[in-house]
């Protein structure tokens, strides 16, 4: 499902959660939505899912406004960290609600996911641990098979094996049933390989929307003897450095030209891709400090 956002504003009292946000997603991909705490990620997803009406601006999902549009909202699923399920009911009742209310619900897949995440249908939601509640959200999100499925920090409480199980399931189900996923997360490096495009927002405004590969191409990791690395990066924008013994790895922002690449190789330095997280930190810090990129 395509998403078109034009000059979107969402105001809470005298605070602008979204401040003239505009971007366009073609759909049919896995999108990463990144931003610092309070950057407006949850507000944006809430408006896309018609959980909230925007203060002004326009949101179009497949060309139509989602708010109170039955044909559109029935194709959207937003899973939030807080979970939108009945706390005092059993897990079985949560699945029953999905079956009764969601248009594309897949009961067999939901059962399979429950087994994978070791959730019992007999347990009450309020008795689940934080990680199990997150896993239940993942089950609902994936089994909804909604053409636009969004996860908002919805797997933070899960342990590492469960999170990796989620990534595997997400990728497998996306391959079998292609649709649009938007994933908002702070665990950037863990999920970075899933993202086909990345949207970064800060203080309710768009910082960047780019394909993941192109974004990674905005930086380079230079590894080699510490003194050689220091000399090489002296005139470059360094995002981060790590030293292990005499070896140093520096992450630099910006593409290297052919001359610089040749010089690095001649100096015995290794050049590698940059971590998305380092770029994210740099870009959002630059935004906060008002640095023009």
């Amino acid at each position: 499902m395509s998403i078109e956002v034009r000059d979107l504003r969402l105001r809470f009292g005298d605070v602008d959660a979204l401040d003239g946000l505009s971007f366009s997603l073609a759909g049919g991909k896995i999108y990463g939505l990144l931003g610092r705490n309070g950057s407006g990620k949850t507000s944006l997803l809430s408006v896309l899912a018609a959980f909230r009406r925007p203060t002004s601006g326009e949101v179009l999902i497949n060309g139509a406004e989602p708010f109170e549009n039955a044909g559109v909202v029935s194709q959207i699923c937003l899973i939030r960290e807080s979970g939108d399920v009945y706390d005092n009911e059993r897990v079985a009742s949560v699945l029953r609600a999905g079956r009764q209310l969601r248009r594309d619900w897949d009961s067999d897949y939901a059962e399979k996911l429950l087994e994978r995440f070791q959730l019992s249908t007999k347990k009450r939601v309020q008795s689940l641990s934080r990680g199990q509640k997150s896993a239940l959200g993942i089950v609902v999100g994936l089994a909804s098979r909604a053409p636009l499925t969004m996860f908002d920090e919805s797997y933070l409480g899960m342990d590492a094996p469960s999170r990796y199980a989620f990534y595997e399931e997400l990728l497998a189900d996306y391959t079998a049933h292609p649709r649009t996923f938007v994933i908002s997360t702070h665990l950037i490096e863990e999920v970075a390989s899933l993202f086909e495009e990345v949207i970064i927002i800060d203080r309710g405004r768009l910082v960047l929307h780019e394909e993941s590969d192109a974004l990674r191409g905005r930086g380079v990791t230079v590894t080699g003897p510490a003194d050689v690395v220091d000399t090489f990066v002296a005139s470059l924008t360094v995002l981060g450095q790590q030293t292990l013994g005499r070896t140093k790895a520096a992450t630099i922002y910006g593409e290297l030209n052919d001359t610089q690449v040749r010089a690095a190789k001649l100096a015995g330095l290794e050049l590698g891709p940059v971590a998305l997280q380092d770029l994210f930190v740099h870009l959002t810090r630059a935004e906060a400090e008002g640095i023009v990129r």
Partner: protein
Amino acid sequence: MNVFKHLFSTYRTVYLWFWAVMALFVLAIVLSFVVFGPYIENVMDASVWQGAAGAAPRWFVFVIGIMLATVNLTVVIASGITRRAYFAAVFAFTLATAALFEVASLAGFGVERAGFATQGLTGFLPVDYPLNSWNAAASYTGEAFLALWGFMLSGWAIGLLFYRLRVWYAILLIPVGLGPIIGGGSLPPLIGQGARIVTLTVGLALATALGFLLVRSAPVRPKKA
């Protein structure tokens, strides 16, 4: 229809529990007449069930109405249902609940009357006992049904007031949400049935309109940690 089914399957168990408790209550009444009937002749001048059925189910559905606004609303809207569709489902569900509860309430009167009859005490039933005549039954049922429906819609409207608005605005608007309760619960001893039904109907219309106004743009807020 899916949302209606969902609401019914969510509440059917708690409805059954409520009426199981009410059934035990009416059976206890009947049993007390069978055992102690001759000794209570001179003190018994009213129907116990008339008092119970006129209060407990109404406040029970009032609470269910509050839950429809504060518990079910977010889950249903977050499941890809529009607010308009949820409002329509709530309207139908409250109507169906009121009808169902009124039928169960009438059955309770039947059991109580049978209990009185076993001891030849039917003469001690109040003059306005609903099962005294077809007219009395129709008249009681119509008003009691409207009152039940009104209590439930009132709970829904008041629940929405507190879900949507700041607490002081919600408190200020409570009288509008309480319209059906005022019509169905507080005025009966003071005015005639015709006036009560008009008051109830106006209260129902007010609560329905207030509910619609509040739900049509309700945000789906995250749960508090």
